[in-house]
């Protein structure tokens, strides 16, 4: 039963107020892409056992999408940030590296 901070409204939202939205920072591939680019974009997932960057929606709240860095083994939340970005904030990355030196970013 997770609690995640919504970076928009500052609410420590409970999981039941949120909707999980899968892997974050997927790059959209449109009509000019190849079959395998499109397949990758739509289906292939990192499904990380460890630190994952993922999307959340504050459904029962401000209605905004945001991103969270979470460990799928311990449920630790390293941080959240607005969805209007194509990569995680640098500060967050270096914080994670400090906490988990063995972590290999962006596999």
């Amino acid at each position, binding site marked *: *039963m*997770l609690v995640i901070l919504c970076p928009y409204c500052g609410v420590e939202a409970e*999981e*039941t107020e949120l*909707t*999980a*939205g*899968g892997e974050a920072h997927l790059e959209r591939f449109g009509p000019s892409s190849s*079959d*395998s680019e*499109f*397949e*990758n974009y*739509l*289906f*292939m*997932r*990192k*499904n*990380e*056992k460890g630190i*994952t960057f*993922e999307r959340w929606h504050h459904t029962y709240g401000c209605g905004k999408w945001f991103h969270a860095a*979470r460990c*799928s*083994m311990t*449920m630790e939340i390293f941080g959240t940030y607005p969805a209007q970005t194509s990569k995680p904030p640098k500060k967050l990355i270096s914080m994670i590296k400090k906490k988990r030196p063995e972590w290999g970013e962006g*596999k």
Partner: protein
Amino acid sequence: MRKYSVAAIVREALRYNAGWERAWRSPEPKKQYDAVIIGAGGHGLATAYYLGKNHGIKNVAIIEKGWLGGGNTGRNTTIIRSNYLQDSSAAIYEKARSLYETLSQELNYNVMFSPRGVMMLAQTEHEIRGYRRTAHANNLQGVETEFIDPKTVKKLCPIIELSGPRFPVLGALWQPRGGTARHDAVAWGYARACSDMGMDIIQKCEVTDILKSNGKVVGVETTKGVIKTHNLGIIVAGNSSILAEKAGFRLPIESVSLQALVSEPVKPCMDVVVMANTVHGYMSQSDKGEMVIGGGTDGFNNYTQRGSFHHIEETVRALIETFPIISRLKMLRQWGGVVDVTGDRSPIISKTPLEGCFINCGWGTGGFKAIPGSGWAMAETMANGSPSQLASAFSLDRFREGRFIDESVAAGVAH
């Protein structure tokens, strides 16, 4: 292998059971095998069994990081049915179901397959239409199902409340020879038979890397050393993405936690398996008397075998609404399993970009029922190096081609 029988039990009882042999050996791994299977869940063990039995490949190792049968095979709600809609699904699940019918005899191990009947309640007009459609498809696929009216529902399962205030029961899709089996026994029965064929089941041994050379698999690295093989099957359910990554490819899979719970045991009060998809709940009663209840999946990746409690609440609400008498029964235990869910919620039995490496995964929330059929098809695929007829539709390329096998369409869920 010592044959199990009443006579053997009596004989042993008289000498305080001193003579029973091990059900399976626990050998140290050899250096090389003709085939190696990663994952001693039901699917891995069944694959090994049919490799030996159907294809004569017996120099096989099954490598398990924990204890055999301890993955989802050991934690599922044991529903067996084959009333699927799409041809490819109906074919493999019905193959599995029919193998289940005689599995106890074949393995000389009572897996307690109990064809008590599975009913899927229709609680909206839309669901009625969906299930009628499935009944029609099943009729053509040779899967015995029928659409039954509320009266029959009540007769088969008297504890159902037909006129719930929210979603009355309007009928059901009924598969009389669907049912349940003793999940652990399925793994144990296959394991015993594999061991008896000379296969090595190596427990407490984790595969840590997949060794390749020139685009071909040559072996695996494990916590008990390197094991060589040119024929590798990855059959690790919730851990599929991790091993695929080691093999050098990605999968259309997400690992999420699926939960279940059991009530305290009570005397028999429910003789069939009931699934109520509109309200999201399913339940059956085990031979020991617990009500076995399946919950929902988390929406996020989760490798913990725990889940969020609100899924349990939602499920229990739905079931009390459907079976009001259970309100005063108590939950005895709840748990979770890490299930591997694909982009179209159908499984993958396939060759992979790595030559000699095959994968069987994506059974998600509903692969227990498929174990014998999946093992059969996977063994054939591994033995021939190309997909078997039963497996061909479940290949990895279907996602690229847009050739999905979507079962959710007819108001179905996948347990």
